[in-house]
């Protein structure tokens, strides 16, 4: 077995880059900080690709290999928090994705964030994020996952709130952090339940104990607790809640659209390709337990994913901010990944959903980050996020136009782009297990095509007039597509989007590690592709030219349109719950107890001490006769004591 200890460099280089840039980036290394961070990320990407090559070229079923392990905090002989790295198919896939997309974003940001006064800080945060995400995906210990989970949340907070003088950005950062933190409470309780019952925190041992027949397994499945649900279901559901928060599943999705307040490359990295799939990754990590021991919890995953996909697709059809459309489309695609995991079984052909979900994660990373980078270029040119300010851009930014079109075709599931392949597998898995979910998936794919091409046509076609967009710069007009540092990542990602579909994914990644053979069923693919083409056609008809067609349909749909535009009022419901119920019911009484009872006790002790002190102070009144009286009473007391009471 080859030696994988070089994995530690994959983790330490981003950390070192964060520390270096964090400490010195503000004053000393300002402009070269981008180069430093990008170079370190390049090294990390090369190492990850090399690790993937050496891991997947080993023969046979791919086992889980422990590359590094340090026992950090032992609780008891069996249970300890270890820090380390394990390599198994999905973790290798993830380190490749994370490092590659991060590299693309680093290069893109060299051009996009040029001239930003806090350039060094930005790259420091990006490095921190990459470190946390890599630590999350390679961790072999559930607690290490939790630690890096929080690390990713913090980096996301720092990056969303990067423009901290914008109050909306600050509010969005807080919202993201609080919502995901709230979900992480469920995650933590789930960790505690599962690890306590199984007696271990290590992933491999946990899975083994809870899937094969063992006393822990019987205990955890037969012990019913709160509401008559077994402990295992509670544990898995709570862990899934944590994952749902991070992956923006309904109803914890409210932070994702607002997170678009951050710089666009950040959205590309964090909120499209890497962090938001952490929830999917977590379910995939614990998938054997879900599939073998508790199909009920898997149902929760399925329906949550399916519903979120549908909801997000409906909302995305009416949004007018380019980044928000992309945010909802991310939520929808993650919904796909979730329900693909949900409908999957374990082992062999039954594990098709698992493989499809991971494949979609892989391809989605490429085309979604490409979409966001393209949006970044467009925003960089137009200086606005709104669709109404854009139009006719295909004539002045050809590179962006082609890349964006490729990405939109991929996400719509048109062959031969990568999205087609991964979506087919998902729909095939759904068809084999749950026809209802298949129908939803089909509908959503049609809607996806519609709203993505609505976006495409509104940006690049809509108007025929030639707008003179001159980005203000010192040296005169820049190329509207952006400098080469902005174009290169887009072109590379577009190439990946085209080619990723042909990667023999199932040979490497499947639910039990053994290679799976897949094929494309042409008849089956007919339905989704034709639905996508209908969606594209509708969007073209409505949005290619500026006619009143879209307004008429909006008028027809009336209330439903308005509800979708207002994101189905989920934010308002959450605000109601937090303000009226949690604040008034829990927050205010708790604050009252804190102020009056806890502080009151402390202040009371202080006040009482002061009062006693004042009273005692009064003894020294300066009045001689009082002193004489005290003296006398003291003597009398001592006399009584010594004569009568002293035995």
């Amino acid at each position, binding site marked *: 077995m080859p030696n994988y200890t070089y994995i530690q460099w994959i983790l330490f280089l981003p950390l070192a880059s964060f520390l270096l840039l964090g400490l010195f980036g503000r004053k000393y290394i300002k402009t070269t900080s981008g180069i430093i961070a990008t170079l370190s990320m390049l090294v990390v990407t090369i190492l990850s690709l090399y690790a993937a090559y050496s891991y997947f070229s080993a023969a046979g079923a791919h086992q889980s290999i422990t590359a590094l392990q340090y026992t950090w905090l032992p609780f008891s002989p069996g249970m300890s928090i270890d820090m380390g790295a394990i390599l198994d198919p999905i973790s290798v896939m993830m380190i490749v994705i994370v490092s590659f997309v991060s590299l693309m974003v680093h290069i893109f940001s060299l051009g996009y964030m040029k001239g930003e006064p806090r350039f060094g800080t930005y790259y420091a945060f990006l490095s921190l994020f990459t470190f946390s995400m890599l630590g999350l995906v390679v961790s072999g210990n559930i607690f290490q996952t939790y630690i890096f989970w929080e690390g990713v949340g913090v980096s996301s907070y720092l990056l969303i709130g990067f423009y901290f003088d914008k109050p909306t950005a600050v509010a969005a950062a807080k919202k993201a952090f609080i919502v995901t933190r709230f979900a992480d409470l469920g995650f933590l309780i789930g960790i505690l339940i599962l690890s306590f019952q199984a007696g271990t925190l290590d992933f491999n041992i946990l899975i083994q104990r809870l899937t094969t027949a063992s006393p822990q397994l019987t205990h955890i499945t037969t012990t019913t607790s709160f509401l008559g649900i077994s402990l295992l279901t509670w544990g898995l559901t709570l862990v899934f809640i944590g994952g749902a928060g991070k992956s923006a599943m309904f109803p914890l999705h409210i932070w994702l659209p607002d997170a678009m307040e951050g710089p666009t490359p950040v959205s590309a990295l964090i909120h499209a390709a890497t962090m938001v799939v952490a929830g999917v990754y977590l379910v995939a990590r614990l998938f054997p337990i879900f599939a073998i021991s508790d199909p009920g919890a898997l149902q929760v995953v399925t329906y949550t994913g399916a519903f979120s996909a549908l909801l997000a697709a409906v909302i995305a059809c009416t949004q007018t901010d380019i980044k928000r459309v992309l945010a909802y489309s991310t939520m929808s695609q993650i919904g796909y990944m979730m329900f693909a995991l949900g409908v999957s079984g374990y082992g062999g052909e039954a594990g098709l959903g698992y493989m499809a979900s991971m494949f979609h994660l892989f391809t989605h990373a490429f085309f979604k980050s490409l979409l966001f980078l393209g949006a970044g270029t467009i925003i960089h040119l137009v200086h606005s996020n709104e669709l109404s300010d854009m139009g006719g851009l295909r004539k002045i930014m050809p590179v962006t136009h082609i890349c964006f079109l490729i990405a939109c075709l991929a996400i719509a599931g048109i062959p031969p782009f990568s999205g087609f392949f991964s979506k087919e597998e998902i729909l095939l898995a759904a068809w084999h297990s749950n026809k209802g979910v298949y129908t939803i998936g089909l509908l959503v794919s049609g809607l996806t095509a519609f709203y993505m091409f609505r976006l495409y046509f509104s940006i690049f076609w809509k108007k025929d007039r030639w707008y003179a967009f001159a980005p203000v710069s010192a040296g005169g007009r820049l190329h509207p597509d952006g400098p080469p540092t902005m174009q290169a990542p887009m072109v590379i990602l577009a190439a990946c989007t085209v080619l990723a579909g042909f990667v023999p994914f199932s040979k490497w990644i499947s639910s039990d590690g053994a290679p799976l053979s897949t094929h494309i069923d042409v008849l089956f693919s007919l339905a989704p592709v034709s639905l996508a083409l209908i969606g594209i056609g509708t969007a073209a008809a409505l949005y290619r030219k500026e006619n009143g067609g879209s307004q008429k349909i909006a008028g027809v749909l009336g209330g439903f349109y308005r509800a979708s535009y207002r994101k189905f009022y989920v934010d308002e419901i959450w605000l109601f719950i937090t303000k009226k119920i949690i604040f008034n019911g829990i927050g205010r009484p708790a604050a009252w107890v804190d102020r009056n009872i806890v502080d009151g006790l402390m202040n009371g002790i202080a006040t009482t001490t002061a009062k006693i002190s004042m009273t005692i*102070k*009064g003894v*020294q*009144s*300066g*009045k*001689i*006769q009082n002193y004489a009286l005290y003296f*006398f009473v003291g003597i009398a007391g001592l006399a009584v004591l010594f004569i009568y009471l002293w035995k």
Partner: protein
Amino acid sequence: MNEVPLSHILFLSTALFFIGAYGLFTRRNMITMLMSIELILNSVNINFIAFNKYLYPNRLEGVFFTIFIITIAAAEAAVAIAIIINLYRSHHSIDVEDAGEMKF
């Protein structure tokens, strides 16, 4: 003097002592406080003489104690009057309540 038991004389001296103590606690005038102190000292003298007479008639210690107490009481009264006069000069009153500066 054999008919009067010792305890009666001691009763007298004790009562005189506590009368003097009462005067010390309640009088507002510094000189009257001094007078009460003299009463206390006198009661102690009576005590010494009585004990000397009744319990140790072959010795004279009680007498000597009394002599010395009287001497010292005289010295102390003189010094006390001097202090009171000095205090009177600054406060223009011999009310003990007015001399309460040494407080917290």
